[in-house]
């Protein structure tokens, strides 16, 4: 598999995963009363392969995005790496430990934040949960206080820590969850959809916060998300996973090179173009008023641009890469077409 960008020279990877696979048995609930009664005696089960032989190495200080459609196996992978579930096959070490052995020494050195789950006490102010974390992780009181103050100030939530958590908004709670997870200064952080359901301002705050803390602590972070904004703001490395397998592992820049054949050229014209004029351009295009959006093959862009600009009606021009969303969606779709359903009936 791919080696991490920027990992050169670093001795041992923080996370090493080889041939990791997880199968679940699921029971089908048949439709109809008669079938339901029959199912009481003989249940039909299938084996679903949530993760199928994943290899991955992550070096210290990397910020990796795990991307994939729903049910691709991202969360299952993250659960194995944080020791919640044991794999069916394969091996993994995180910080030199096998995660699912759940050694205390390992558990003191990482953190997992799941978007919809809370580790904060619902009826109490977050400050109380923080205090419990101080004891659970055996943190030095002075250092704990310093870290806590720094984290709450970075997120601008100092005023909220004395308010019962149930009274806070989703975004405020998420910020306090992040503080709770980072109090013990974990070396590895797993984030499962940390920005789900948050508004743009809260997303930005969390991005800036994560960037800052990650850089300062040289923390290794794996993040699963559905938002390309998260990826673009945070990660240099992108791992695309579909149907339980890694489809792409590399830099953000590279995915654009590898999976797009064209660029998007936008022309602002002085007037609404007539159809003949557009056809003459000879590229697939879309007309929005006086604005024309063209998809031009990357190899031809150098020739095509001067030709387009020679048209005196052009007021403005911009050349952009295909949006990340589009590339990734294309990747998901192509994987979907190729693979058979990831299950075997029994």
């Amino acid at each position, binding site marked *: 598999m791919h080696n991490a960008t920027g990992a050169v020279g670093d001795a041992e990877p923080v996370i090493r995963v080889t041939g990791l696979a997880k199968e679940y048995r699921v029971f089908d609930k048949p439709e109809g009363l008669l079938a339901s009664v029959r199912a009481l005696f003989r249940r039909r089960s299938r084996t679903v392969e949530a993760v199928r032989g994943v290899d991955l190495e992550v070096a210290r200080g990397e910020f990796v995005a795990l991307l994939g459609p729903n049910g691709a196996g991202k969360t299952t992978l993250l659960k194995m790496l944080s020791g919640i*579930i044991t794999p069916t096959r394969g091996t993994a070490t995180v910080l030199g430990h096998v995660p699912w052995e759940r050694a205390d020494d390992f558990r003191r050195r990482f953190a997992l934040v799941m978007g919809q789950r809370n580790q904060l006490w619902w009826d109490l102010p977050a400050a109380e949960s923080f205090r419990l974390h101080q004891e659970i992780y055996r943190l030095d009181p002075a250092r704990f206080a310093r870290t806590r103050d720094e984290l709450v100030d970075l997120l601008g939530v100092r005023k909220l820590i004395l308010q019962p958590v149930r009274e806070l908004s989703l975004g405020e709670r998420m910020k306090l969850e992040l503080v709770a997870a980072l109090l013990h200064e974990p070396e590895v952080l797993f984030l499962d959809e940390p920005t789900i359901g948050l508004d743009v301002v809260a997303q930005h705050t969390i991005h800036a916060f994560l960037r800052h803390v990650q850089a300062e602590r040289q923390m290794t972070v794996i993040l699963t998300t559905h938002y390309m904004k998260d990826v673009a703001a945070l990660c240099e490395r992108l791992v695309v996973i579909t149907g339980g397998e890694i489809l792409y592992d590399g830099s953000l820049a590279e995915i654009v090179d590898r999976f797009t054949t064209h660029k998007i050229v936008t022309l602002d014209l002085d007037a609404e173009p007539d159809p003949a004029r557009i056809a003459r351009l000879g590229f697939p295009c879309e007309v929005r008023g006086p604005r024309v959006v063209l998809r031009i093959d990357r190899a031809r862009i150098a020739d095509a641009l001067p030709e387009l600009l020679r048209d005196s009606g052009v007021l403005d021009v911009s050349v952009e890469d295909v949006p990340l969303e589009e590339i990734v969606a294309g990747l998901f779709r192509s994987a979907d077409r190729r693979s058979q359903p990831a299950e075997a009936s029994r």
Partner: protein
Amino acid sequence: MSGPSDTSAAASDPLAGLRIWWTMLVISIEERLVYRGDFALGTLMRFLPIVTQVFLWTAVFSATARGDIAGYSRNDIVAYYLLTMLSRAFSSMPGLATGIARSIRDGSIKKFLVQPVDYLSFLLASRVAHKLVYYAVAAAPFALVFFLCRSFFPPLPDATTVAAFLGALLLSFLLGFFLEAALGMLGFWFLEISSLVFGYMLVQYLLSGHMFPIDMLAGIPSGIPGTSLADVVSWLPFQFTAYFPAAVWLGKVRGAELVRLLVVEAVWVVVMAVACRLAWRRGTRRYSAFGG
């Protein structure tokens, strides 16, 4: 922020375990206090059923010419019911089993797999907190009822009996905790345990002495030659959660028999604590393999 290497500076502190427990206790107390109003009301409600019991037994005694039933006078019976209320204030664990099962089902148990903290210790700490808050709120109504009913009670027992009574109460707390916790751990194997909990409550109600003093079963053959139903029940853990402390206070068990039963109770506590540990270990392994 400095490097992560000295994060575990305080890790070798031998008192750390105790301090975690203390913090969990204090935080749980704070959490319970959020619902103090509900608590106060619940305490008063608990005394209502006893009124019907007093009426029932008054009717039973007026219908019979005998001064006592199975060694209990009418006054003894009322005192007995009041004392089992006290036992149950220690041994009953409302919502413990269902709470554990819920945390398994909704996945909040994950927190205890990811963080370096022991789930059972955590549950125990929060239960102690739960009880302490309850006693703080319930002490006044309990004292009032016992004061009003003082004429039903025999004279105060000697110091040894009082000590044995307190020991039995303390053990009944631990026994009640581990019994219900073990029941809750079944949630690792069954999606829904509410009918199991219901069955347990029923058995508990009949065999603990909550419904009637279990030594009343002394005359009923158990089917095993030479043993009565009361003998069988006396080896089970349930009687310790209601009957036993009350019987100790009323002087129904004394001397060697008292010591024997205290030992049996302590053995049950250990057995159930070990059962909980095993269930947790096997349950989390199963959870890791199948669920998550």
